């Protein structure tokens, strides 16, 4: 629109634009995050000195945090508006997108590269040791158990969650009035934190010596059938499965809800036609419903895999990796905080990262195809 005004100076402004736009873009990208950060830090330090009430700190910090972000966005935009025409329009997008890029660079990209570097270093990152940490992780018996357990988690949680979610989704579709109620109760564990779920199940697995009343559901049922009370969480290697059950309990409802939405999308004409052709319900399930919703099944499977791969909370709370229940994420935490070994801890994190790279590539390709 207003470009016509300056069209005569195009050749002159273009080199100037090119020269100034770069630094200016970086500058406007930094204004919001850096100044917000400084404002928050200053207000925190000030309140710490005055020993302000905690709720007051929260309220002030919220106002400063949120308010500062907005004020600074407005401010930056106004400053950019003062710039000469050509420069302005090439800089302005960075007022919007810059802060997000700066935060992502600082909180995701830089740490990722740094962790990769640390994983080739010694305990406190002062010396380069090559692949020693990786060799250690792939040979030490304790860590091999962690690898084994992660595989167990991946296979059993993913397998059970997806297949049970699918079966329940198909069944729940046919129970009419009760459907939303049954769905709510099966989905409910998804709202609970892993820590809460762990306490819930620790109580289910609770153990009292024989002769004492069993207050854990599992041992109560087991002794009612004549068994001796068991400490379920210390029986190797089955204790892993008792932990795995917790995550299955948490995620099945989630899989069910997602798959259920897909099942409802199967055209009823398709199902009717199959029934008229004399197909049994089992044949319809495998021949019509599953092929129709396979995209959803793939999505939910990768989603569950990513969640399971990083399982930490459940193991941390239930056993803290004792009795051969260690998993990679807990081992990583332990290396970091108990042994202060940045190298090994970093190497474990890198292994987790490598494991999700196929999903990352799949996501990016899926996104690009969708955009085309």
């Amino acid at each position, binding site marked *: 629109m207003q470009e016509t005004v300056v069209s005569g100076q195009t050749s002159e402004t273009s080199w100037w634009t090119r020269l100034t736009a770069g630094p200016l873009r970086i500058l406007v990208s930094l204004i919001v995050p850096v100044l917000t950060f400084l404002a928050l830090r200053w207000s925190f330090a000030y309140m710490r000195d005055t020993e302000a009430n905690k709720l007051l700190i*929260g309220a002030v910090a919220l106002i400063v945090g949120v308010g500062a972000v907005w004020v600074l966005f407005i401010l930056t935009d106004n400053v950019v508006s003062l710039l000469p025409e050509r420069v302005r329009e090439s800089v302005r997008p960075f007022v919007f997108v810059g802060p997000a890029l700066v935060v992502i660079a600082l909180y995701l990209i830089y740490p990722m590269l740094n962790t990769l570097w640390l994983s080739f270093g010694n305990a406190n990152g002062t010396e380069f040791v090559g692949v020693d940490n990786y060799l250690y992780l792939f040979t030490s018996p304790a860590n091999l158990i962690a690898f084994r357990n992660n595989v167990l988690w991946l296979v059993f949680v993913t397998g059970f969650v997806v297949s049970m979610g699918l079966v329940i989704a198909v069944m729940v579709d046919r129970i009419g009035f009760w459907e939303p109620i049954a769905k709510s109760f099966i989905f409910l564990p998804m709202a609970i934190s892993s820590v809460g779920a762990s306490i819930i199940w620790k*109580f289910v697995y609770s153990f009292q010596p024989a002769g004492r009343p069993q207050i854990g559901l599992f041992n109560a049922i087991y002794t009612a059938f004549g068994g001796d009370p068991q400490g379920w969480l210390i029986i190797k290697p089955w204790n892993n499965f008792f932990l795995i059950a917790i995550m299955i309990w948490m995620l099945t409802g989630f899989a069910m809800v997602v798959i259920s939405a897909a099942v409802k999308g199967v055209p009823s004409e398709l199902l009717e036609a199959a029934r008229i052709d004399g197909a049994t319900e089992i044949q319809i399930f495998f021949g019509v419903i599953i092929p129709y919703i396979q995209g959803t099944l793939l999505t939910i499977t990768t989603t569950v895999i990513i969640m399971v791969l990083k399982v930490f909370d459940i193991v941390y709370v239930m056993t803290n990796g004792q009795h051969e229940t260690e998993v990679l994420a807990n081992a990583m935490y332990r290396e970091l905080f108990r042994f202060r070994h940045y190298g090994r801890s970093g190497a474990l994190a890198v292994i987790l990262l490598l494991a999700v790279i196929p999903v990352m590539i799949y996501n990016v390709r899926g996104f690009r195809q969708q955009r085309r």
Partner: protein
Amino acid sequence: MTLETRTDGNRAMAWLRNFFSAAPVRLVVLGIAFIWTLPTMGILISSLRPEDSIKASGWWTMLEHPFEAAQWTMANYARVLTTDGIGEAFINSLLVTIPSVVIPITIAAFAAYAFAWMEFPGRAVLFVLIVGLMVVPLQVTLIPLLRLYIGWDMNGTFLGVWLAHTGFGLPLAVFLLFGYISSLPAEIIESAKVDGASPFTTFTQLVLPLSVPVIASFAIFQFLWVWNDLLVALVFLGTSREVSVITARLAALVGERGEQWHVLTAGAFIAMVIPLIVFFLLQRYFVRGLTAGSVKG
């Protein structure tokens, strides 16, 4: 379904047949729902029983005579809220969670708008990068950030956790908001431009109000994610009473008070209250948000 197309008589027959064939399925599904609920029921009932009776008999024995008022008590709740520091941890959780939801939404909304409606060099590449970063396991960021925080004297502060959650939540937030904002009709954005609105005004007056549904979905997802998170809170805040959030406090209680179920059950239930309220009141957004956000790393 296709029942509408049939005649009345047939419809009644079909309904009957449907009812009887559905009966076993209904039984199985309701049975599963019941089993799924039992463990949670166990801690809810136990949290309302006196310490001695929790130890003396299983929680299910309460169901034999549920109306004897004397066997119920609120004492466990009073105790965990004060003595065990769950009350303080609850407030800390709120202080951590609210800014950790609001700050990333603000920053992500601006970015999503730019990705959707502005031209700038590197736009496609940067966005693909963000899509890729969504599933990065946050474990991979912990050590360097911890070292930075120690250097900046920010370890164990709320500020550090807010910014960490902001960083970890941003790729997902940008991705979700972009999907929605880029699908707004181009005519609306164009007409605002023609009317002389600056990109900033277009964004705040037009795009933001229109994006409320997607913002709500992400907000609920992020709220639950941060509220239920243990790892980030443990690493950047630690377990000291003054700053620890409710999940970290509970995890510490499991260690300190392993078999004191009157404490653990009441504490666990307090931690569940807010997610459960969100779950029952906003179930539609809850499902949408969880589904959209489940890929987060």
